[in-house]
């Protein structure tokens, strides 16, 4: 009985972790697209109004962002609008956890068939590069090296630290705003 309860608690914690990481990544994508030139250059070539979703089968959690033009990405939350242009779907919450806890690189997860891509493959490659850049900036080098295929050789501390501080500040503000909305829905 005790074992069953602790197993259930672990599964719930894993789902919450994935949910929270998606939320952090959503706000962080929004933030990095305001300042990082490499992300702006990549995102600028996405169609305006392009909606990207990363989700877990069969029913979430999810993160949804939209390209609003000029390389700016806007975090739309966890509920996708009717038309999603590109969807990357983890086959199981366990696979999402492996990637989001940096035990498996995104590229490895693709190679291991952990995810399905629905949409333009070229845009999926571009979004993966944006996610890799985000991870390289906001994670300590040791952790980031586990998350991305190759840690960017040209990313020095003078670029990384201010970039990360700026992103974490915006993520914190966004998360507090989300929490406030949840507590007092209008």
């Amino acid at each position, binding site marked *: 009985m005790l074992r069953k309860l602790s197993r259930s608690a672990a599964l719930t914690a894993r789902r919450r972790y994935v949910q929270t990481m998606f939320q952090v990544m959503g706000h962080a994508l929004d933030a990095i697209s305001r300042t990082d030139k490499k992300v702006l250059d990549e995102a600028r070539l996405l169609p305006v109004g392009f909606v990207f979703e990363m989700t877990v089968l069969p029913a979430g959690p999810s993160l949804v962002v939209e390209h609003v033009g000029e390389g700016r990405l806007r975090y739309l939350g966890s509920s996708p609008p009717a038309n999603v242009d590109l969807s990357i779907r983890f086959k199981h919450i366990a696979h999402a956890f492996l990637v989001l806890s940096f035990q498996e690189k995104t590229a490895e997860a693709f190679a291991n068939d952990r995810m399905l891509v629905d949409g333009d*493959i070229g845009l999926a490659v571009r979004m993966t590069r944006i996610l890799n850049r985000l991870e390289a900036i906001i994670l300590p080098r040791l952790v980031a090296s586990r998350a991305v295929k190759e840690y960017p050789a040209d990313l020095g501390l003078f670029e990384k630290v201010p970039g990360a501080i700026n992103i974490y500040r915006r993520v914190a503000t966004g998360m507090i705003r989300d929490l406030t909305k949840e507590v007092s829905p209008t």
Partner: protein
Amino acid sequence: MSRYYEFYCPVKVISGDAALEHLPYELTSIASTRPMIVTDQGVRAAGLLDPVITACEESNLVIAAIYDEVPADSSTTVVRDIANLYRQQECDALIAVGGGSSIDTAKAVNILVSEGGDDVAAYSGAGVLSRPLKPFFVIPTTAGTGSEVTSVAVIADRERSVKLPFTSSFLLPNAAIIDPRMTRTLPLHITAATAMDALTHATEAYTCLGKNPLSDAYATAAVKKISGALLKVMDNPDDGQGRLDLAEASTMAGIAFSNSMVGLVHALGHATGALCHLPHGLCMSIYLPFVLEYNLEQIREPLSDLLLYLEGPQVWATTPASRRPEATISAIRHLRDELHHRCELPRTLRETNKVTEDQLDQIAHKALDDGAIMFNPREASFKDVEAILKKAWG
């Protein structure tokens, strides 16, 4: 953490002498009485349809319809026309006879005749199909694409100027029939380019991120067959055993890469093919050593292994372990030199006379957005790709 992988290949491979004569049995065993052949003018003109038709007639099996006008770069319109012919003639199975274009076209036709409708674009993408399609057989007439064992097809939509990808395990044929008669008359420069395509499939399958023990087994077997047979066939095009070895190697490399994916060589090849209309096999042959050099430090171990299959146990044993990866690349370069000597297969982009130096930037940009780049062991940046292209320019 232990490695995870998936491997899937339900295609029956019917290979060797008189393999074509097994086709009637395969068709009748699934109660097909009105098969349709999908092929192209080149195959028809080379007389390659004759043994297929004769094999069926001798078993009292009538070919209900033949469509022999598949173009090199097939389109949704062609697919619709063939599907209409299939329905008019009340056919009940498809036989693709040809190279990548005929096989891909027949895969797309199978979607329409099985699912209904006229718009094959509606089924584009991954995992859209949800049930088995009509019986489908493939008889390859080139030894390189491996399309007879892959679950993808690419068809051009000319109205929207896009290439539509179709991915589903239901696209896989019931059987692939590998008969040495079908590749015996293949011109030497096409034999060389398509074999280099197969060698690249096997090499990338063995060195990229999706490699797994089962795809490794197919990849190494394919490399061994190609290195043993290619130059023999170039010197003696009527070498039936050599032709069969190349055809089987192509199928094995196809099974390997469809289960482990490919990498930067293919990303560059797809981009170059789209922008400069260079044949796919030729692109593979040009880029392979340059990309292996670029990936070298990440793939030293698998590249060392490949030396055994490329050059044999004696060379492998006498090469110092630390030099084997470089020796593998040298062996591939040597093979390209031999092919250039025998049929002038270009080794650089400059030698093709179809690419201009000012197109390299465009190729680099396009290659960066190709799905294959995801599985490359190194994270290639624009600068990296540009540097590889400059080397490949020559």
